[in-house]
């Protein structure tokens, strides 16, 4: 994809804001929107006309040599030329992908999911997500009805002492004035789908577990916990498995355990008559949604999200899925 968009070697842009102009360019837009960090990493500043750069910077031309005593990227004078090297960016990206692929291949020799088999067979608990740094926040996406023109606001940040994450905002149920949307008012945070080499979608294998464990502290509002399974097939992209989480509010942490058998199936937001349990070895993401039709601020503090095997829980599925008993199915 990057090769198709490469026009020539060493494309030059006179200004930093030229990147935004290029992003609007129909040929280069998709490259820039996907690779801003790569471009910044391969930016080579050319010497200013006054020739104040050191001889070392001239001969090596690497960013490392030129970073000493220089201003940051966002303070570059508009008169200076910025050289953006697509080749370098693409090569760096491909190298990273191959490194991940090598890691996956080597991990396969160790065992499933890159861990020894006895570990997988013997484990009864696993912490999937915990919030201890900003990097943990990057694994989550925050959405709200702003995408459809609503007025809710949602934010995610690290809470006090970097021991938990705080998802907060303001819910606004006023529908957008577009003439067709009648209801609005939701905020959600969803985990990113795990990716392998070359951005292949991967999924979590939770077949050794049967319960979701959440350590949260809410404001008394009812939340919905959503699980999405494999989204490769277009028919399954709107499938969702949900269950409710009623937060208590107050200063004490709440430990919520939701067995997998309790999650009900919905498609495009509508609960289906034909219910079935979700496939525990094809989990792609977990999310929290607030849509309780109450205007006002909200917050949800999350310590960690894990899964465990509860041997006392023997229920296979909580909802009726037999056509003989329920004739509507």
């Amino acid at each position, binding site marked *: 994809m990057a090769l198709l968009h490469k026009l020539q070697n060493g494309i030059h842009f006179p200004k930093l804001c030229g990147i935004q102009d290029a992003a609007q360019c129909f040929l280069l837009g998709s490259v820039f929107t996907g690779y801003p960090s790569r471009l910044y990493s391969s930016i080579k500043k050319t010497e200013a006309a006054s020739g104040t750069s050191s001889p070392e910077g001239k001969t090596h031309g690497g960013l490392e040599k030129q970073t000493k005593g220089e201003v940051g990227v966002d303070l570059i004078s508009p008169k200076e030329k910025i050289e953006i090297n697509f080749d370098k960016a693409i090569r760096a990206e491909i190298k990273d992908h191959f490194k991940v692929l090598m890691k996956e291949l080597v991990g396969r020799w160790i*065992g499933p999911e890159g861990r020894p*088999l006895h570990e997988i*067979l013997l484990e009864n608990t696993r912490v999937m997500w915990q919030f201890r740094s900003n990097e943990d926040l990057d694994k989550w996406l925050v959405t709200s009805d702003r995408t459809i023109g609503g007025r809710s606001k949602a934010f995610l940040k690290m809470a006090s002492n970097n021991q938990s994450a705080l998802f907060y905002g303001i819910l606004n149920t006023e529908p957008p004035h577009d003439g067709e949307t009648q209801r609005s008012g939701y905020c959600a945070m969803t985990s990113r789908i795990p990716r392998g080499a070359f951005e292949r979608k991967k999924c979590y294998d939770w077949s*050794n577990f049967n319960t979701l464990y959440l350590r949260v502290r809410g404001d008394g509002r009812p939340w919905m916990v959503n699980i999405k399974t494999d989204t490769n097939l277009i028919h399954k992209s709107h499938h969702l498995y949900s269950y409710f989480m009623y937060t208590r509010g107050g200063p004490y942490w709440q430990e919520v355990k939701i067995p997998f058998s309790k999650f009900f199936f919905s498609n495009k937001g509508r609960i289906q008559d034909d219910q*079935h349990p979700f496939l525990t070895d094809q989990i792609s993401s977990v999310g929290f949604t607030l849509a309780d039709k109450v205007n006002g601020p909200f917050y949800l503090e999350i310590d960690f999200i894990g899964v465990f095997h509860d041997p006392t829980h023997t229920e296979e599925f909580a909802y009726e899925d037999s056509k003989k008993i329920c004739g509507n199915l």
Partner: protein
Amino acid sequence: MSPYVTTILTLSLFIGTCLTIFSEHWFTAWMGLEINTLAIIPTTPKNPRATEAATKYFLTQSTASMVMMFAIIYNAWSTNQWTLMQLSDNWASIAMTLALAIKLGLAPFHFWVPEVTQGIPLLTGMILLTWQKLAPTAILFQIAPHLNMKILIMLAILSTLVGGWGGLNQTHLRKILAYSSIAHMGWMIIIVQINPTLTILSLTIYIMATLTMFLTLNLSNVTKIKSLGGLWNKSATTTIIILLTLLSLGGLPPLTGFMPKWLILQELINNNNIMTATLMALSALLNLFFYMRLIYASSLTMFPSTNNSKMQWYDNPTQITMLIPTTTVISSLLLPLTPLFITLS
């Protein structure tokens, strides 16, 4: 499912395979394979994983049938022959080999086998990995003289290696048996042109052992290694049966499973295929490794578990285990009959 529907589907499966085995014309053989494919699809239950498995199975088998029909018509166009044994055109023979490789799940066309086997119930998986192999193998047996040896060797070695390596990281038993099937198909394919009777012998013993495994696992509805670890509590004899059957599948003497591997290696060496024989023998060790892992989990070690219930094997069993003793004896105690099989071949 209604007993009438089950009867019709079972009869269709039986008739389809018999039609293919007994037919002389390519069209009737192809028809039998199609009947087989369509008869097994309604036996899958109506949950998303089974629906996906059935869809994948249908698509792969249809693709194989399409390639097969192309080979048949191309052969008829170039040689004016519709008989099964007259597949003399080179390109038709290659296309037919590839079509049968897809049908049998040989590498590199093996990707559907673990996914489909994992998605369907144990008994349907048993039919898929045993009965559904009969018809394509019968066709291979009949067209063996016209097959390209290089392609067969490549398919065979790739299958045994993929079957061995692919099964190493699995924790689901159905997927393990699927990879075992891929590897065993490799053993059958390597010898089909040199001594086709050994292919039939190998298939028969493989079917017996796989039948034993599936029926035994179905008794306690065990589908994962973790649940296999708790089987000693429910039924200790089942663990012994699993031990014997898996060692037989691994090809260890003095069990029956050693017989086809031994005869195949002997035949390969007699035909100066020493490197191939070495590779096949080494790749069998990969399979043996994960069989031993299952044996360790089920019978040789006390697997850690959270089961604190009473010893369930004290209770009288309520399920019928009619076939299991017979298939266990066949799959583990027939090695002394090897001279008989050599004579017959």
